[in-house]
């Protein structure tokens, strides 16, 4: 793996996740996943349900041990979770007995142990303000909507000033209006903070709007990168301008056609992997 450069900020090399199979060889749900993220880049990962998108993200987060391959952030190998990588999951998982401010403060205390109480509070207030919750700092989760709770989750992740932000379908449980609003909020923050970000999503429009690059994953088992699409729209992005771009639908078509092709070949792929496991072949199933 190469030295730390902003062009190779996150290096994912031949990343593989295998689970034991009592009937034969281990089953590799993700195999030889390769991707490099530049500093400050936003990369979406799309693919069908169960293809291994979240498995990749949890491995990058250090929450899920890798079976093979290498993972590095700024040239340093990842061996477990750390404050350099923050995760926002689909469900914000706030502690119900704590207020908004206290939920965010929990991580900030760990990351800024030498800061004064006032400094830590200022950090929390700053990021809660960025996500539009300046007036809700003393509310409890039960007093807030799903969208507001997810905003707390985002503030909690970004307040740690991570080098890498990992978003695992962060808008999956939100209605479309709230989802768009939160997408814009996150993009504003990322444009300002320049945090390298990986977003897991099912939504092709979300992927195009938010990302600099879109990584399309093939079906599992042995899921891997099918292709990567560069999204050339300038930043900061305005939703209406992106949607009105004369080539927007070419990008959209490319993503949907990829997913459709994966869907059509799903059964054949599973059959091929099954036969390979029986034969003990090392050859990759998909090109």
């Amino acid at each position, binding site marked *: 793996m190469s030295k730390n450069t902003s062009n*190779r900020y996150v290096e994912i090399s031949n990343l593989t996740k295998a689970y034991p199979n009592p009937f034969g060889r281990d089953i590799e749900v993700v195999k030889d996943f390769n991707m490099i993220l530049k500093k400050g880049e936003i990369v979406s990962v799309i693919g069908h349900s169960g293809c291994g998108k979240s498995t990749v993200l949890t491995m990058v987060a250090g929450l899920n041990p890798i079976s093979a391959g290498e993972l590095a952030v700024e040239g340093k190998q990842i061996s477990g979770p750390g404050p350099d990588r923050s995760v926002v999951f689909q469900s914000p998982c706030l502690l119900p007995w704590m207020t908004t401010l206290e939920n965010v403060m929990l991580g900030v205390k760990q990351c800024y142990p030498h800061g004064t109480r006032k400094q830590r509070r200022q950090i929390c207030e700053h990021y809660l303000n960025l996500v539009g919750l300046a007036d809700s700092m003393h509310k409890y989760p039960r007093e807030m909507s799903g969208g507001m709770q997810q905003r707390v989750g985002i503030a909690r992740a970004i307040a740690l000033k991570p080098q890498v932000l990992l978003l695992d379908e962060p808008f999956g449980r939100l209605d479309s209006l709230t989802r768009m609003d939160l997408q814009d909020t996150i993009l504003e923050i990322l444009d300002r903070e320049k945090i390298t970000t990986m977003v897991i999503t099912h939504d092709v429009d979300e992927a195009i709007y938010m990302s600099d690059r879109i990584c399309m994953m093939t079906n599992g088992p042995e899921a891997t990168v099918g292709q990567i*699409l560069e999204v*050339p729209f300038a930043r900061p992005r305005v939703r209406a301008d992106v949607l009105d771009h004369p080539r927007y639908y*070419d*990008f959209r078509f490319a993503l949907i056609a*990829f997913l459709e*092709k994966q869907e059509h*070949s799903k059964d054949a792929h599973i059959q091929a992997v099954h036969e390979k496991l029986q034969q003990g072949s090392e050859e990759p199933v998909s090109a």
Partner: protein
Amino acid sequence: MTTMTLEPSTLTSELLTLINYVEVWTLPATDESESQSVLQLDHAYVIGREDVRRLDSTGRNGLGEGIAGSAWKQQRPVILQGENSAVLQHVIDISGLPIEVLLAIPVYRDYQLVNVVVFGLTAGCGGVEIWSRDDRDELAISGSYYEGLSSFEFISQYVRFPKGAGVPGACWKDGRPRIIAQPHAAPNFIRSFDKDPAQLSQCIGLPIGREYGFAGSVILLLSDEAKPLARNFNLWQCESSTPTEGDTNPAVRFTSSSLDTSDLGSDWCQSVCDRVAIDRQTLLLTSGSDGLPVGFRFGVVIPFFCNESIDDLAVLLF
């Protein structure tokens, strides 16, 4: 030099294949330094509908000169097109054909350049893509030519393939050429075609090595049934290890990796393999002295080496 005998404008629809012009340049083995070597044009052929003509062209290209010298210098395939290209215009003049694009393919043996094969393509639905490694170790298009594939052309400039992904990434990973039939329906051809799908019938991926290591350049050739690249395009995969240079009895056997070769005759296939094993460079086959299967008038055999061993042969018959 052969004079122009055919009227280009009347030929386009009559030509049977996309490839209608072939040059083979050779870098002579020499003790001199590379800068003193020159590529020599050994053969130039025009493949018309009715006949195959050998041109009397001679030429020498230094490093970086002409399309062959550019491929040598850049250590990767080169595409040349456009009205302002003097090299392309020269080929149009000497061939008498409406050549649209020239593609130069460097052939390496043990990481040393042996030949540069230059193909001239006439108009027809299809495309040529050169995928080269970028600073992220992904393959991106570094040169291309398309006809009748506008949306595919647009989106492809934004596509990247890591090692192992898609057809280019697969060629890069195992270093072997491959043929994908009916790519629009093939699961391993991942890019989408136009909204009104162009029914391309064949996709051929050719990995190109370079000096001192594999470059990760991959050529992708796309064509439709109405006008294929060649009348017969085969990839033969080496069945056993190739004998070393100087072996007087190179019992090399190849199996076709993608297409049925039964109509070519196994004896003929074996004789071609044996000749390449001895010559260890690109082989041209003409109907006069070389012997070709019935119905074919011309052939090009490009070897793909892994170090000194021949791994694969791309066999184009016209």
